[in-house]
């Protein structure tokens, strides 16, 4: 019963880790996970998020075993 949380690029350096497991609970949202992990801080402006490899909004409600990712604006190409 866990959610896998991943961080990428400069955000991974800022939070000091690339991955962490979070215990699942009913009604858990993408925003709530960020707040749980940062002692209540809001997601910094411009940071993007995805659930199961698809972009999402902060209010997305998670299912058990989902994978959540947070990352800075993209700069590929």
């Amino acid at each position, binding site marked *: 019963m866990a959610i896998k949380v991943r961080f*990428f690029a*400069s955000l991974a350096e800022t939070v000091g880790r690339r991955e962490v497991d979070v215990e699942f609970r009913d009604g858990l949202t993408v925003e709530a996970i960020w707040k749980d992990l940062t002692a209540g801080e809001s997601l910094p402006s411009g940071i993007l998020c995805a659930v199961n*490899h698809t972009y999402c909004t902060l209010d997305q409600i998670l299912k058990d075993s989902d994978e959540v*990712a947070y990352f*800075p604006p*993209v*700069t*590929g*190409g």
Partner: protein
Amino acid sequence: MTVRIVASAFDALDEIRAHELKLGERRRQIGAAATFVGSMRDFNEGDAVQSMVLEHYAGMTDRHLENMVAEAIQRWHLDDVLIVHRVGEIVPADAIVLVAVWSAHRAHAFESCRHLMEELKSSAPFWKKEVTADGERWVTKNTPGSTAGFSG
């Protein structure tokens, strides 16, 4: 449709040639091919850049690119699309990205090629970290996709 994310240097012309061979008889219906190759500069924001590391989100990046391509094929009635994108350590002059499209008509080829490139730049999960004489730094924004965005 082919989307490849590669961790070693690639030759864009070889990629295009190999893909065209795979088109086979379908080439008889194709009237236009448009390609874009992006490569690494040895300067950015006024500084010399020695090398670069490109990070991506395995699983999401490839899926995102495949969805983009599927939408473009439908919207512009394309015959085929090839995207190759480099990750890992890159040095100046290396190709970073190739977008190649094949269609019956040039208008669709030109438009879709540009669209795919701009979509990739603005939404595909890749991140660049540059290595300069002063150390490493993350690239925080891409250059504009239109000449109107350049100030001089």
